[in-house]
């Protein structure tokens, strides 16, 4: 068992340190400010191939901002972000576009294009960036819709489906290019517990099925427990705790205790104990 570190996992004591080629995401000393408001203050972490890292923290602590840095929607003021061995902030527009073809991003509200059907939303990245024939694209769309358990939703418009289905479509769209890295931005936001559980199971299923690496921004403990291998707690733009999921919930870090609350923490501890 790795001891929980206050600023990140104690890597010197890790039994199996992944090789440099196995690190998919490497974030080092990233700072970001919006005007006078410092959002990220020296964030550093790594995610190894096939692993899922959960990002937890209160609202406004910079979790979604961090995710947007990883996919190149924002540039850090200072620090470096490497994805699949490439320094994201220094990439040109075309290089970034090429790299993003190997990445999927699930937005909080789905962010589906309202005037395209579900199937057209899924097919869009393939039509724009690949030489696949129309029949191959249709086949791939059907495959991904089946994977997220909504095989018959293809002809519907986003306005005609529920919030839970939008999340599933968002996940299917992120998976359509078979990405090596998937970023989830609060996949459970606005969903009831039953649908949340279904989405969590789906995310786990997707990870197992595709073997992809994932970063998950989430508030809900249940999602983190189901989906993630390790967790990172952000507070005021800094990493407070970074540990494997079972150790994370047993940590006595005062900020984590305060964030989870005594009941939730006790429940999580009980659940994660072997």
């Amino acid at each position, binding site marked *: 068992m790795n001891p929980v570190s206050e600023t990140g996992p104690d890597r010197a004591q890790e039994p199996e340190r992944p090789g440099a080629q196995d690190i998919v995401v490497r974030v080092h000393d990233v700072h970001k400010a919006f005007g006078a408001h410092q959002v990220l203050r020296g964030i550093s972490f790594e995610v190894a191939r096939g692993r899922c890292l959960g990002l937890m923290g209160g609202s406004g602590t910079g979790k979604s901002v961090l995710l947007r840095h990883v996919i190149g929607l924002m540039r850090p003021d200072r620090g470096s972000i490497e994805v699949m061995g490439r320094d994201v902030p220094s990439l040109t527009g075309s290089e970034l576009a090429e790299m993003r073809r190997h990445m999927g991003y699930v937005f909080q*509200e789905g962010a589906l294009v*309202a005037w395209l059907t579900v199937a057209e939303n899924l097919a869009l990245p393939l039509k724009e960036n690949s030489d696949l024939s129309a029949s191959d694209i249709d086949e791939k769309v059907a495959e991904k819709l089946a994977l997220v358990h909504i095989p018959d939703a293809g002809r519907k418009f986003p306005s005609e489906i529920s919030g839970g289905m939008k999340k599933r479509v968002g996940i299917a769209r992120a998976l359509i290019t078979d990405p090596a890295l998937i970023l989830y931005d609060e996949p459970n936001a606005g969903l009831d517990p039953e649908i949340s559980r279904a989405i969590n199971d789906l995310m786990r299923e997707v990870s197992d099925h595709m073997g992809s690496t994932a970063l998950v921004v989430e508030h809900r403990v249940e999602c983190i427990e189901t989906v993630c291998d390790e967790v990172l707690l952000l507070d005021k733009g800094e990493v407070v705790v970074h540990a494997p999921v079972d150790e994370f919930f047993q940590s006595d870090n005062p900020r984590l205790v305060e964030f989870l609350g005594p009941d939730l923490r006790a429940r999580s501890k009980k659940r994660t104990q072997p």
Partner: protein
Amino acid sequence: MSVVYSSCASFASASNVSAATPPEWWATLWPFLFAASIAYLVFQLAGFRDTAAAIGSRIELAGQVMVRTHHLLKRRRWLMEQLYRGGIQNLHVVLLVGLFIGMIVCLQTGIELSKFGQQDQIGPIVAAGMAREMGPFITAVILAATTGSALAAEIGTMSVSDELAALEVMSVDRISFLIVPRVIALMIICPLLTVVCDTIGILGGGLVATSQLNVGWAQYIESAYEMLESKGAVIPLPMDVYAGLLKSTVFGGLIGVVSCASGLEARGGALGVGRSTSRAVRDSIICVIISNYFMTWALYR
């Protein structure tokens, strides 16, 4: 008070004494000085940097659209949809407004001309007025208020709901996918609707001329047609028609670029979308009016 009056009188008389024909360079220079003064005023009121940045971003967007025009074949489905939404869905508005504009122009000029027995000039005046100015301008204002605002709201909503970010993440070129079909559609729609507006306006003027100003229908139509037939010095085509269509094509492009740019800049939820929509309509109409002056100056000087 008497001191003031006497000062004014002496100034006026002095001005009259010294009044002379302005030099030739003044005729060329004054439009630029006037435009520069207006631009200075606008920059002072709205904040120089913000205005300059907004103008710069719109010019940049127009350039990006121009270099991607060849993507239209790939985007023909969205082009057709925009042509339908901008053209067919606004046709009834253009017909109604154009009809009444033609009737108003005819009535206003006809009342004055009839005082001098010059009713035979009503047809040419209405035709020239509609083809040169009122048709392109009114059509542009209608399109700015309907299609332009809809574009800004649609793209603004996409911006605040992360749909634009999603397109970027999927490596979809949003200029090619969203902006090119919309701007080009407006550049096609605007002159087509201008022809409709001109035609219905001239016919509306004819209704007023025959019913209220004692002008024969045949005389009105014939004189209007003769007016529109006169060819330009540079291009051997009916000058008023092609000048009006050229203007309306530029107006369409301006409305498209300005409205899409406002939508792309929308931030901050529904409030931001509302702001971007009103800014799109306001800026579009300002651009149409300013560009109208310069095009008129270039075409008819």
